[in-house]
């Protein structure tokens, strides 16, 4: 199968200049390479500061990488100009951690959903409304919510709305940057299930960025562990859990709180 996304030795420097003019270089990504097959979930796990979010920003065309290549369906978006980016951009969508701050608080659910459609200039008003309500249904929200404001939705409903907005342009790749971390665990499970549903019905491909190794292991086909801008270990989810090779992976595994999920069947008394 041809990969949907192929990243080759991606490097991103940030330069920080202090008031006195001293230059300080920060290597956020230091030669990252991986491929994602269509219809699969690729998880990037790491502590804060490991470069996960910089990676997401580079892939979503929000940052220019310093060097390296990003091949999306055979098009190099790292080297391509504005035209290439404009062509690829709708196909790669990003979902952020905190839906409350990534949705305009003064726009209604409907406004939020049709904004990306308006920008495409391809749809009539009626088509856009129809699409908005089918998007709402797709993510498990009622079309009757279209007139509400984000503040009138619960955290889980807001994240569903963010997913619906990301799906509006029928992207091929969804980048989920800590998309579950801010949610209650019962809501996390609902959204995780929704993501798995969308993957099987639409064949979505996910890049799932998280510090939660347990959720990564549940959702992902392949896991890459990042530390200081490099991928230190990468492999199928089972292998990473069973035989973590790198110290960082072992540390992340050790940080997963241990408990049993199913309650014991026999009560204590």
């Amino acid at each position, binding site marked *: 199968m041809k990969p949907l996304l192929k990243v080759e030795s991606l490097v991103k420097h940030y330069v920080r200049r202090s008031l006195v003019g001293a230059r300080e270089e920060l290597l956020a990504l230091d030669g990252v390479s991986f491929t994602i097959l269509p219809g699969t979930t690729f998880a990037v796990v790491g502590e*804060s500061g490991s470069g996960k979010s910089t990676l997401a920003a580079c892939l979503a065309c929000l940052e220019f990488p310093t060097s390296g290549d990003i091949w999306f369906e055979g098009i190099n978006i790292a080297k391509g100009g504005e035209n290439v980016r404009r062509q690829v951009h709708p196909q790669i969508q990003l979902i952020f951690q905190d839906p409350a701050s990534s949705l305009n608080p003064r726009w209604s659910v409907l406004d939020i959903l049709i904004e990306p459609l308006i920008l495409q200039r391809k749809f009539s008003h009626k088509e856009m409304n129809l699409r908005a309500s089918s998007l709402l249904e797709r993510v498990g929200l009622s079309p009757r919510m279209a007139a509400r404001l984000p503040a009138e939705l619960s955290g889980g409903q807001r994240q569903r709305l963010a997913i619906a907005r990301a799906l509006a342009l029928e992207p091929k790749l969804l980048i989920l940057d800590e998309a579950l971390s801010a949610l209650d665990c019962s*809501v996390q499970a609902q959204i995780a299930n929704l993501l798995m549903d969308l993957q099987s019905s639409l064949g979505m491909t996910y890049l799932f960025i998280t510090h939660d190794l347990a959720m990564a292991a549940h*959702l992902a086909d392949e896991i890459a562990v990042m530390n200081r801008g490099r991928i230190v270990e990468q492999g199928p989810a089972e292998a990473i*859990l069973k035989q973590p090779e790198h110290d960082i992976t072992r540390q992340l595994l050790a*940080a997963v709180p241990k*408990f*049993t999920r*199913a309650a014991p069947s026999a009560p204590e008394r």
Partner: protein
Amino acid sequence: MAPVLEIQDLHVSYQSREGALYPALTGISLGLMPGEIMGVLGESGSGKSTLAGSLVRLLPANGNITRGAVHFEGKDLLRAKPRELQQIRGARISLIFQEPSLALHPTMRAGEQVRQVLTAHGSPGRSALNDRVHEILALLFFEEADRISRSYPHQLSGGQRQRVLIAQAIACGPSVVIADEPTASLDSATQMEILSVFRTLREKLGLAMIFITHNPALLSGFADRVLVLYAGQIAECGPAEAVLASRRHPYTKALFQSIPEVSEKRGNSRKSKLPVILGDSARSSLPARGCPFEPRCPEKMDICREREPATVDLSPSHTVCCFKYESESV
């Protein structure tokens, strides 16, 4: 042993702009023992933060404590004068909030921020003050204390900032610390680090703690007692081992099942659906009568819709509010 903090029948409600009252806590009673870590578990909207705020009367302007009492060191905090409360807050009972970067002053060095807490609650001489600041920071940062003391918040990592907040919270030697989701914005390794800091402090200083979280996984091996809140009521409360190992209330059970498990022999559970609690706990979807969890409960019975369940004592220390256990009362 007498509890250090005792909450009796606490009722809190919020008033909407139209004047309607929305109950947030309805009848919470509990006693916190000296040196005890009480984990409070609940979804957003369950009343966790309202509980934290109402204990020291730091509620939003539209929050009203309508009934109840909070006994602490011989006073009822809900009836204390503002001056008395000022002396208690931050000194005898202190709070730690979720977002450490918002709770610290951005242009003030960490050491100075700890010093200000001390000066606000009495002013020993300057050198005694410096010694005390150093002593507190050393407790949390060991040999790094001096460097941290001179640093600004933006020069510190998330975990370090949270430890500065903890330093502020323990500066005046409180007997109770209320921590409202103190680890929610941290990554999992730092979360565990902060939990172990809390445990060490409890051992060294004998602090009692109310630890509020929505993540049940954090509580095992950390809390002594666990209180599960649902829609402003106590669904289940008991010793941590009992509540976490043999969950009784259907809500507690469901909460734990929704977390993916990391185990080596998980093979076929991967990519499977996670069990979820259907619906939500928003005020508008709560039933007008009967058990508040009834619409979402996988084990509901007819009686659940008719009246509210009473609290059942499964053992002297373990209570659950569910009809299923009525026959097991001791």
